[in-house]
């Protein structure tokens, strides 16, 4: 299940991009789920563990991927850590939900990410509430973060 702590969280990793840079392996990039995230968020195709085809930047390495997709991979591949997922835009939200369906993860959010119009299951750790859609999430999270 996906759990979210909203607001300042000292034990969370504020800069997931740096964590990714120092911890990612070839396996992180070649994982089929990672490749789907890269394809969807960055519109880029993984050609090999060290080469990715970006429509804007051309041939790039994993280090030039967006901060959002690096954070998604960090959340997915290091579920024992808590990352600041405000490094992710709303176009990463569905992938955070999918990761939460695959495994138990906790993320830290410092803004109101839009999780879309579908139903979901998210535990808000600040209050202990479980919410199932944005209509339930917004009144709770909106009182904590901007």
């Amino acid at each position, binding site marked *: 299940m996906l759990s979210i702590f909203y607001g300042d969280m000292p034990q969370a990793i504020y800069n997931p991009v740096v964590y990714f840079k120092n911890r990612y392996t070839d396996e992180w990039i070649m994982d089929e789920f990672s490749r789907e995230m890269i394809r969807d968020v960055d519109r880029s195709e993984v050609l090999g563990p060290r080469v990715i085809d970006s429509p804007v930047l051309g041939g790039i390495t994993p280090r030039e991927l967006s901060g959002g*997709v690096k954070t998604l991979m960090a959340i997915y591949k290091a579920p024992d850590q808590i990352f600041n997922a405000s490094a992710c835009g709303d176009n990463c939200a569905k992938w955070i939900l999918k990761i939460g369906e695959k495994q138990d993860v906790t993320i830290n959010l410092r803004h109101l990410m839009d999780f879309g119009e579908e139903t979901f299951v998210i535990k808000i750790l600040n209050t202990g509430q479980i919410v199932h859609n944005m209509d339930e999430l917004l*009144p709770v999270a909106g009182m904590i973060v901007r």
Partner: protein
Amino acid sequence: MKGSYDIVVSNAKVRYAFTIRRNITIVKGDSATGKTTLVEMIREHYESGAGSGIELNCAKTCRVLAGRDWHILLREMHDSIIFIDEDNEFLPTDEFAGAVRGSDNYYVIVTREGLPNLPYSIEEIYGIRESGKYASIQRVYHEFYHIYGNTRTGKTVCPEKVIVEDSNSGYEFFKGISTTKAHTVISADGKSNIFAEIMKSQEQNILVIADGAAFGAEMDRVMKLTGRRKGIILYLPESFEWLILRSGIVAERNLEEVLTDPEDFIESSEYFSWERFFTKLLIAVTKDTYLRYSKRKLNEVYLHETIASKIVRQIRGIEW
């Protein structure tokens, strides 16, 4: 620093073109739109100049602030446009807000997090829109005569409840002109309470009045609420004092020029946000006149029918 500045930065792969016009500009939005690439290009051009292969055209020096020693670096930065990426933990701190206050730099900050310590304008929140290799920076929130939210163009809004950010003169004005009206007027006692006040309200049609010049940090959560609950309208002029200055009741040479291009007159080191400039200007131009203005207590002359109607006339699309 004052004035507006066009910035064009490009390399062989991407080109960004945009204009900065206040001390604080926020860039936010989806992942993979090029926000970090923009900051990185600014940094590389500052470090290596034309030898970086990056072309950058701007009348001011553009540079990047980052890292744990940001406060030491910032002390040496003056009269510059400073870009800051979202991975800097100092962004939400009081220490950083204190450094921006009184600074002669402009700041372009990449962040999705609302920064309540910084009084940034709703008009200076941008997202990057890309079209192939060309990217422009476009306003996130679109208005119709300073009205935001779920409203249809041309349709007059008739509120049942008015929530005013202010607890002083602005609130007293809207309360005063509503004594014979059906709607109620309450003060939120500060912009950070507006979200909670809307949540508490049972009325179908709610009008929120706040100073747009400093409402930026609140805008995301309040707009998300307006998107999910019908009948919430935001009226966000620069400030209440700006509204009075625009109404034509104050005669002052150059006033039209100041209101048309405020950025040419507002020195960032002197004014943390534009609302403070407009307050000071209104106090100055009404001093020793019957319109003498005080922010703390409303001069009752502003409630006189002739004057009040001129002020209210500026608020288009809302029935008073």
